[in-house]
């Protein structure tokens, strides 16, 4: 399946991926200003920028083949789509027990306590048709959306 791959040698740590992640998961998908100022609650970025300058890279859910989070989930909210392979969390069923966070080997799931307590994670922008918003808006080609890890190294 297609995944997002980070190229740390080109990540400039600007965090525009987070800005566009928030926007893509808000009710205002085409308006950054409104997404930030009017969404209530404003979605959390599901992409995490790990940074220890000069090293930095954007990390999001790896959508593992054998996804621990789906097995650990106590309500069945965390599911891996058998066709697309995308792991998503059904927030209506999620009870915010954080078990998925405990078992995630990548630290890619975040606690969202802004409204109802839920686990927030990358859904590869399932709602959008093109590539994920973070990849589309990375200013320096530091994120790639592709089938395998080829071309990740320059």
């Amino acid at each position, binding site marked *: 399946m297609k995944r997002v791959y980070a190229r740390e*040698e*080109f*990540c*400039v*740590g*600007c*965090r*525009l991926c*987070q*800005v*566009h992640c928030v926007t893509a998961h808000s009710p205002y998908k085409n308006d*950054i*200003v409104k997404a*930030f*100022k009017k969404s209530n609650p404003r979605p959390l970025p599901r992409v995490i920028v790990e940074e220890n*300058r*000069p090293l930095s890279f954007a990390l999001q859910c790896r959508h593992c083949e054998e996804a621990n989070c789906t097995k650990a989930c106590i309500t069945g909210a965390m599911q891996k789509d058998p066709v697309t392979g995308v792991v998503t969390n059904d927030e209506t069923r999620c009870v915010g027990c954080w078990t998925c966070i405990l078992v995630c080997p990548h630290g890619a799931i975040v606690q969202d306590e802004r409204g109802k307590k839920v686990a927030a994670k990358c859904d590869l922008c399932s709602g959008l048709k093109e590539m994920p918003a973070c990849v589309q*808006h990375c*200013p*320096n*080609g*530091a994120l790639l959306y592709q089938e395998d890890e080829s071309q990740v190294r*320059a």
Partner: protein
Amino acid sequence: MTLSYLTPAFLIERDNKRCIQCKVCVQQCANEVHRFDEEEGEVLADELNCVNCQRCVVMCPTRALSVRKSPNEFRQNANWTADAIKSIYIQAETGGVLLTGMGNDRPYPIYWDHMLLNASQVTNPSIDPLREPMELKTFLGRKPDSLVIENGKLKEKIPPQLELDIPIMFSAMSFGSISLNAIKSLARAARQEGTFYNTGEGGLHKDLYEYGANTIVQVASGRFGVHPEYLQAGAAIEIKIGQGAKPGIGGHLPGEKVGREVSETRMIPEGTDAISPAPHHDIYSIEDLSQLIYSLKEATNYEKPVSVKIAAVHNVAAIASGIARAGADIIAIDGYRGGTGAAPLRIRDNVGIPIEFALAAVDSRLRQEGIRNQVSLVVAGSIRNSADVVKAIALGADAVYIATGALIALGCHMCQKCFTGKCNWGIATQDPQLVKRLNPEIGAQRAANLLRAWKHEIKEMLGGMGINAIESLRGNRLMLRGIGLTEKELQILGISAVGE
């Protein structure tokens, strides 16, 4: 600590209706102009260190920022301008030489803009480059005085030539003055478009040997990074005598930019200043220059053309004649608007002459002396667009060098602060955090696009003149007319006035 009289040069305007406090500007400003105030919960700016590089403006996702000239004004004075006053404040505080970056920005006349090109009408047809072949192929190097043909073949071997698909090359910028990613961008673009880039006096980084066939290696007064493999690696060798931005002045790469990789490439200890002396200490005459030219030819088996680069100065025609007679295959002339990573401000703004005049004078002189075929002429010093290229070739150049234009393609916004090492666009810096901002894949694409765009435009202009090969335009000054020039200027440029 006494009070500094310096005030911000720029004003940053933040549209608070648009600002989403995302802190991208804070992350991106190497001058630490933007900061996030935790107590106020908002991004604020202190413009004192702002250089107007536009990085924050371009990166801001909501276009909330604009930078403009500070509205603060000194009392109007046509003689003591703000620049003149501020220069004195800086020198009164530091006691030092004023430094600057990029080319001369003073409002001297731009002679390219005083020349107009011809086009065909009625009596000789113009050519449509989309329908008919159009040749831009250019060979740089010494051409024989005559061709002797025996049994249908050339009797003598033609001296080594550089083969260019487009008469535009990237001029010398060293590893040290610019980042490795910037050089990689230019090297890849040169390979992709069939032309050359130039190492400057920075040596050849190990990652760049693969681009050797598209590399001109430079030998300058500091001889940094020069060794047999280096000379062998390039397609041509250039002896740098002078640079348009700072004629008569050497170079100085401060120790803080000499990290491990620059140190290895230049073959100097890490952290030491790399000082290129003003003269080559073994060149005090044309004969000495000849000796270095032939030493380099000997070292490379007479297989590579040797270029000599000089700054355009008052006696440039006589100097060029001497260089041609010294055995150079190519003469590169850099006009007073040529760029630099660092130059003393007063030198940059007051020394040298415009490339248009230097080119016309040198081409005329070499023709008069009957030695024009012995050298190719490459001109540099603010070639801003394809029309400048066409005009330069009509005036007599074989090819042009571009550097400022190439860097602008990579993202340079002409803030003229290259010498600080804090280039926010990842070009004129060795800071790893900043260098990675220039992805060489993107950079190479942008630089190659620029060359391709200019190639299309050059073909259009040639076609309009009814010319189907750049060779037919070379030195064809009948294709130029001067506008708004004095009799004397027209005479030196060797062109007629409009309407003549």
